[in-house]
């Protein structure tokens, strides 16, 4: 089993096929989208492949050490210029193929007009501990 991070982006990802901002959808379309994501997560819970999912607020800042005795430097939030991560889901699956398959399924969540969004999701494997026994 290997863990993968599925990243959703507010910005910075290539444009989705059905690229309509959420506030332009109908309330029913929003509900359908949310329901799709909930159903997806609970199906993965049943297969034992779901680890966790979290949504992130859009604000963020860059923070950096600025020398001894000085407060950290903060910069940002650069709302217009940097990638923004909207949220993630962590899954624990048997293969990379399975991770890609699930990401594809998540990307098909319905959006405007009830049609799939086809948004780009980033799939990143977790780095893990070295194996205790290696052959």
């Amino acid at each position, binding site marked *: 089993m290997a863990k993968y991070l599925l990243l959703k982006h507010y910005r910075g990802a290539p444009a989705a096929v059905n690229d309509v901002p*959420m506030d332009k959808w109908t309330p029913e379309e929003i509900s359908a989208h949310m329901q799709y994501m909930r159903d997806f997560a609970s199906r993965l819970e049943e297969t034992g492949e779901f680890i966790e999912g979290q949504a992130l607020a859009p604000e963020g800042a860059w923070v950096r050490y600025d020398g001894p005795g000085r407060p950290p430097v903060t910069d940002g939030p650069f709302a217009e210029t940097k990638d923004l991560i909207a949220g993630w889901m962590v899954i624990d699956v048997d293969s990379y193929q399975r991770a890609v398959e699930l990401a594809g399924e998540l990307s098909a969540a319905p959006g405007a007009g009830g049609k799939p969004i086809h948004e780009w999701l980033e799939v990143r494997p977790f780095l893990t501990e070295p194996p205790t026994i290696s052959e």
Partner: protein
Amino acid sequence: MNEALLRSLTPAVLGILVRRGADFAAAEDAVQDALVEAVRVWPADPPRDPKGWLITVAWRRFLDTTRADAARRRREDLVDSEPAPGPTPAVDDNLQLYFLCAHPSLTPSSAVALTLRAVGGLTTRQIAHAYLVPEASMAQRISRAKRIVSTVRFDQPGDVATVLRVLYLVFNEGYTGDVDLAAEAIRLTRQLAAAIDHPEVAGLLALMLLHHARRASRTAPDGSLVPLAEQDRGRWDTGIIAEGVDILQTALARDRLGEFQAQAAIAALHADAPTAEETDWVQIVEWYDELARLTDSPVVRLNRAVAVGEADGARAGLAALAALDDALPRHTAVAAYLHERDGDLATAARLYVEAAHRAPNLAERDHLTRQAARLKHRQR
């Protein structure tokens, strides 16, 4: 196994150990050990006096862990000479625990964790689960908190306001798994109200009950928010509302108004209205004026602007809002709502989008996005 009974005995047992001279951290560990032992032994061999049993086991455990083997004889003497378990005035001990666990030297999250464990009798695992924190992190948080309060000398009465703030924080948290934090906060506040005669304790208890009574109607089955005006009032728990109103009236009659009583009064006026349209907004604005006088909080003034919008019309609400800093949390959401009521749908839709971006939680973000979507579709 009666877990509720075990939990309700925890603070009294802990308080007695501390009063007998055990330091707080060691006493707390000993009580936890005794609880574990109770869970193991009681089903087959229930004690006649559960509290006495717990005190004896916890005290022995405390002595075991604090005295070296070399002092065995002395320890046995001590066990022999321990006061016989029996009716003990636990009220003062309980109170002291509340004050200790909410001590100002603790961060709010540590105070909350320690209160749930020492006063509430929850396990570290349950608390970690309720706050979605790994168990190891929560264990660290609790032992740090215990170390800090172990150095606290308790020679003066604690500050009730600090305790109430901690209980309020517990109540406000969401909950997952097997611990319902809102219900737990109510249980602890009831216990506190029984131990101390203070109108603000009653005020907080009333406030919690009045909000708790509406809980079932606050979210739709899919988890989305249902605004107050659209809630199914038939699902409000009238028994809990009546109890809350009763407690509040007794507290108000004592004429020592505080912020929790004022908040509870507002909640009671909402709970009292048979329909949203029949809400007594004029009286609610008056209570917000009291609350603003008591707290001088900008958040209170923001809520007041909403009430003014309902009592005197959207324009009046917007005027009240204009006097406030627009960086306040939910300021944009309130502005959007008042502009919609005023008929300016385009501005309202734009503000709902902005408010959704600033929303502090998912349910609110979804709700505000839906509001924006609703208005944009109505304008077409």
